[in-house]
């Protein structure tokens, strides 16, 4: 089974990389971008076909490694 894990910064956490990208878009003349926050996407293949088990295994992976929950949120999507 395939899954996608998205890790994003929590609201209020300063994201200087996002700010720099925002500035670069503006300098390229791309109008209308209000703000940019940078995150990470992990495409994961899991061996199980059991959705509940896949969900819990990926949440464990996020809590233990993929996200630092002090500053990041994560979302697991089973595809």
């Amino acid at each position, binding site marked *: 089974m395939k899954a996608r894990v998205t890790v994003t910064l929590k609201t209020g*956490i*300063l994201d*200087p*990389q996002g700010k*720099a990208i925002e500035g670069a878009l503006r300098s390229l003349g791309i109008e209308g971008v209000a703000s940019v926050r940078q995150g990470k996407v992990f495409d994961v293949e899991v061996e199980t076909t059991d959705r509940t088990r896949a969900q819990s295994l990926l949440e464990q992976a996020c809590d*233990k*490694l*993929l996200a*630092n929950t*002090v*500053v990041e949120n994560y979302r697991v999507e089973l595809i």
Partner: protein
Amino acid sequence: MKAAVILFPGSNREGDVARAIRQVSGHAPAIVWHGEHALPAGTDLVVLPGGFAYGDYLRCGAIAARSPVMDAVCTHAGRGGFVLGICNGFQIACEAGLLPGVLMRNSKMHFVCRMQYLRVERNDTAYTSVYARHQVIKVAIAHGEGNYTADDETYARLEAEDRVAFRYCDAQGHVGEANPNGSASDIAGIYSEKLNVLGLMPHPENLIDSLVGGTDGRGMFQSLVKELAPLAA
């Protein structure tokens, strides 16, 4: 004092800290590969050195914090053993849960590599006893991700429990204007609850010789020797 310096793939200051320990204590520390499952018997002090362990992949310190030797390091810290995390080692200690919070990208995006003044916040710990309280010391900094970040509750606890070890300051000891990375309350280093784990972004191990910039960093290692040498006797 029996010290062990952990070597991760991508560490690059292990030689500097080993030299500082040898110069001050008279004994060379053991260099321990991150894939080991145990520390040398009788280890008093574990050092997580600076560098770019695992190329800072995922988040700085994240993968190193999950390497095999870290279980032994956490057990050592749990027993009250001393753990010193310098720069990337501070990031690793935070990722391993030995210290609260996380080191984020410097607020102005630049990697900063220069000399920096620090204010020693307290001198009643194993790491700072030869300094004076609020002494200003000059050490080196070299990091891109030193912006200490935590939740409000953690900040409040760190301040209430007097666990900020060092703050960035100017030559006169004034905080606020001299912050190189945007860290809250000018935090440059923090202690664990029992004061046995210290994490800091600056590099005291590079300031041990007057030929290369000064000797203000030596005090940290002298303090540790003072604390730990009697244990060995």
